[in-house]
């Protein structure tokens, strides 16, 4: 079975470490916040200018001046700080954020990522995605392994305009967890009940498969 969105978030959350500053993109990455392992502290960075993002507010707490990068109303966690967008991207570009999780349309064997523009469709903009991929060392991309039509999103070379070049090392899809190194995807884990053959079939870019590919487990 392919992973659900919640399971993908759960798997990503296992990469969180105590004391990490983390930027979570919109969509599945946002859900990661729900699965922070017990006993560790992480602080969420929201690129509009908030370090220490708390939960959504209650009706009574809603404040138009307090939003996240997805423009949703949020609260500030204890120990949060608030700053300008220039300061926020100084943190991001300067490599101070420990982990960035974001979605993508395509990733390729050289660590290139395409996530913002589909030619022929209306272009809404890249927001902070280009800064995040250029600035972070530790990035996890979350996306489905293949399109609804079965076309692989793990490619020899991205076909869409890039968001960043040579910046992605880790990919979690609904079928597998993979790392990118030396011009290839390396299969590290597979979703429960998903065969190595299915992953090979749905990976267009060069794929290195070890003898033993452990299955992910979920409580």
């Amino acid at each position, binding site marked *: 079975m392919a992973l659900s969105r919640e399971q993908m978030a759960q798997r990503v959350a296992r990469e969180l470490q105590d004391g990490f500053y983390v930027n979570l993109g919109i969509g599945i990455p946002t859900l990661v916040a729900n699965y922070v392992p017990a006993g560790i502290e992480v602080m969420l960075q929201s690129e509009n200018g908030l370090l220490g993002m708390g939960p959504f507010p209650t009706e009574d707490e809603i404040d*138009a001046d307090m*939003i996240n990068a997805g423009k949703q109303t949020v609260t500030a966690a204890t120990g949060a700080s608030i700053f300008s*967008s220039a300061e926020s991207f100084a943190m991001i*570009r300067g490599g101070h954020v420990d982990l960035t999780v974001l979605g993508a349309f395509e990733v390729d064997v050289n660590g290139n990522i395409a996530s913002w523009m589909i030619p022929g469709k209306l272009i809404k903009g890249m927001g902070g995605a*280009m*800064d995040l991929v250029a600035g972070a060392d530790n990035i996890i991309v979350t996306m489905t392994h293949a399109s609804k039509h079965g076309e692989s999103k793990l490619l020899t070379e991205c076909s869409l305009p890039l968001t960043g070049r040579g910046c992605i090392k880790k990919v979690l899809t609904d079928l597998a967890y993979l790392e990118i190194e030396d011009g290839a995807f390396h299969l590290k884990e597979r979703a429960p009940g998903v065969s190595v053959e299915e992953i090979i079939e749905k990976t267009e870019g060069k794929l290195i498969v070890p003898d033993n590919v452990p299955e992910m487990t979920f409580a």
Partner: protein
Amino acid sequence: MSGFNKVVNSYEEAMAGLEDGMTVIAGGFGLCGIPENLIKQIRTMGTKDLTIVSNNCGIDGFGLGILLVDRQIKKMISSYVGENALFEQQLLAGELEVELTPQGTLAEKMRAGGAGIPAFYTATGYGTPVGDGKEVREFNGRHYIMEESITGDFAIVKGWKADTYGNVVYRDTAQNFNPMAATAGKITVVEVEEIVEPGELNPSEIHTPGIYVNRVIKGTFEKRIEQRTVRQG
């Protein structure tokens, strides 16, 4: 006005001098921390062919979106413009020009513009359509593109409190692009929720020092929320 007193009492006065073809830098992220009344004043004035530098372009009927109704905007420099049907229509009809700029690069372009730095190098956008045609340089084995800074004829800013000298404090994430915008206008206009006397704001806690600010006006704000999200309390 006398001495350092920057307070003006009408929106006409606040935006006096804005002319067709000018560049206006606006603070705000989404609808949060936008100078909503200064934008309305631009709509009232009917100024045309404006270049607007702002992370977003509001929504239909609110924020910078209202300047689209009479086609007052010639060009937008933004990182994300996805929440606006009229915007989409004018873009597809070729009536509106858009320069999409990564969010961090946009913030830095304003910051550098206000700080007298004409250009800077960043890895953001290298090898992407954003880097096309821009100078590339290598530092310590990594590629960077040169980005030019931005200044505006006007900067329009939303603050929380200001004193009459134009020292400004922002509230929560309504800060966003406002401090950089404030530095980058030839004429910087700040609208705030409250104006206090000099000395009432803690000097150590001022976000925008008055030297950047030309006019201050007190407004009342709707503060519309774009994505109302709650948890059960």
